[in-house]
């Protein structure tokens, strides 16, 4: 477990030694604000909750999470430091989890920095803060699922741009898997049972509850499974590239 922490610390600090972190945070916060206040009609709604804020999180994450995760493995491969990392007495699962947790913690920092939203809505009205808290927790967990996908895609390639684009594409599929765009394609060659399964993979469906502050076990299990699956695939990919 302590080896995980060593990798975590290095990776987390690594985010902040370059402008990457700061650029990301500014863009994330600016976009979150813009989307909430303008497109989400925060003021016109006249309701004291943060639903318009949370609604856009999947779309924010769609582009910004691959931006954080693309460097996790691709950069190590490109610069050759993967050879240093994997010859230290740290197992591959420990390295994978350490890096993932660092990226997740960084996302957590970004989410925390949206606290002015929370202050705003509390100044303007009397929101149910429990609902808002649940929304943050749910959003954080969903970010973790996106990150697991992004980290896994990063392990596929040396090229960070490819890692970014592929991660976006996969996240996009997951977001939209409940919509006709994806389902029509699935219906063409899968039995109905599986089509229903694909429909249930939609991040949007699962997240809708979360925006209302309802965290159902089903949603947690789904997001947790996605995380687990892609982290496992991440470990396999790193091992595979070693054997290649």
């Amino acid at each position: 477990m302590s080896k995980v922490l060593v990798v975590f610390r290095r990776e987390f600090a690594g985010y902040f030694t370059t402008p990457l972190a700061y650029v990301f945070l500014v863009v994330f916060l600016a976009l979150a604000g813009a989307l909430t206040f303008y497109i989400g009609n925060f003021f016109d709604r006249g309701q004291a909750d943060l639903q318009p804020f949370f609604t856009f999180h999947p779309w924010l994450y769609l582009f910004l999470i691959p931006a954080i995760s693309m460097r996790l493995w691709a950069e190590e491969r490109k610069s050759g430091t993967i050879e240093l990392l994997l010859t230290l007495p740290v197992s591959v699962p420990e390295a994978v989890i350490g890096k993932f947790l660092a990226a997740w913690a960084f996302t957590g920092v970004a989410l925390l920095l949206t606290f002015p939203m929370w202050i705003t809505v509390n100044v303007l009205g009397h929101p149910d803060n429990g609902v808002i808290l649940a929304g943050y927790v749910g959003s954080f967990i969903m970010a973790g699922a996106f990150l697991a996908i992004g980290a896994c895609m990063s392990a596929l390639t040396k090229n960070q741009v490819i890692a970014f684009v592929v991660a976006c594409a996969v996240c996009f599929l997951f977001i939209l898997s409940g919509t006709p765009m994806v389902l029509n394609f699935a219906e063409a060659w899968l039995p109905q049972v599986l089509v229903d399964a694909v429909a249930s993979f939609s991040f949007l469906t699962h997240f809708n509850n979360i925006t209302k502050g309802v965290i159902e076990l089903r949603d947690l299990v789904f997001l947790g499974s996605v995380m687990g699956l892609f982290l496992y695939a991440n470990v396999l990919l790193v091992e595979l590239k070693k054997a290649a």
Partner: protein
Amino acid sequence: MAGRTRTNCTDGCARMIEVQSLSKHFGPIVAVDDVSFAVGRGEVLGFLGPNGAGKSTTMRMIAGFLAPTGGTARVCGFDVIEQPIEVKRRIGYLPEGAPSYADMTPKSFLSFTAAARGLGGAAAARHIGEAIERTQIASVLERPIDTLSKGYKRRVALAQALLHDPEVLILDEPTDGLDPNQKHEVRTLIREMAPRKTIVISTHLLEEVSAVCTRAIVIAGGKLVADSTPLELEARSRLHNAVSLRLGGIAAAAARERLAALSGVGEVEIIEATESAAALRVCPRNGHPIIGEVSRLVHERGWTVEEIRVEQGHLDEVFRTITAGRG
């Protein structure tokens, strides 16, 4: 694990690294083909070979970065596939190209390495201090690594390999990119550490092999083509024990005829032929010293000798001969 005994190496272990029939295939390409050797404590093994011969691949397999396609590698008795963490604990590895985390400073990089190797607190500080001192990187400790010169980058990577004072060191081209002074320092360092450790280095520099290694392995085309001490390798050169001489006042052709007639002599090359002098190289037939015969002939004939010397074998010539066509 049935039938396999876990042999831990203590001080009495003769074979710190044992490689048997090691192979690595990248698809259809055979990078390493059935390589076997063993290295004990106190030995400094030099890996020689043309580029792409399989040296780095072999080292990567021993260090646990690549999984072998066939064969086994054991370090201190631990198998690199079955017990990788135990192997990695005991190895200090300097990868080819000396990679390092560009945004970190040497200090933070060494702290990270120390933590990853399970060193904490005072022990970490002590080990880091020693590594810094040995590689002399104290002056650049707080600068981001990507702002350092090539030589310093390599020394930082070397410090990372030495940090935990490992029993086994695997160094891929440790002096590459260093200036002659730095090369000398690193070689001195390696020689200093050698008695207590098992060291494997790979190099293109034949002078390094002579300077540092107790044993040399030549790898070409993925295969092991020579395994002996540097001196033995030199002796394989056709120039070993050759006599180079410069004679005054005699025609080169005539001198050559006389010399070639000697029993121990193989070939005689004319290096230079002018009006007044002839420079020749007399090669022994089978590597045995011929200086006695040659100097007797010179004395009998009364030739004027301006220069005469016995040649050491040239490693680069041996190297070329062994690896010709196998690159």
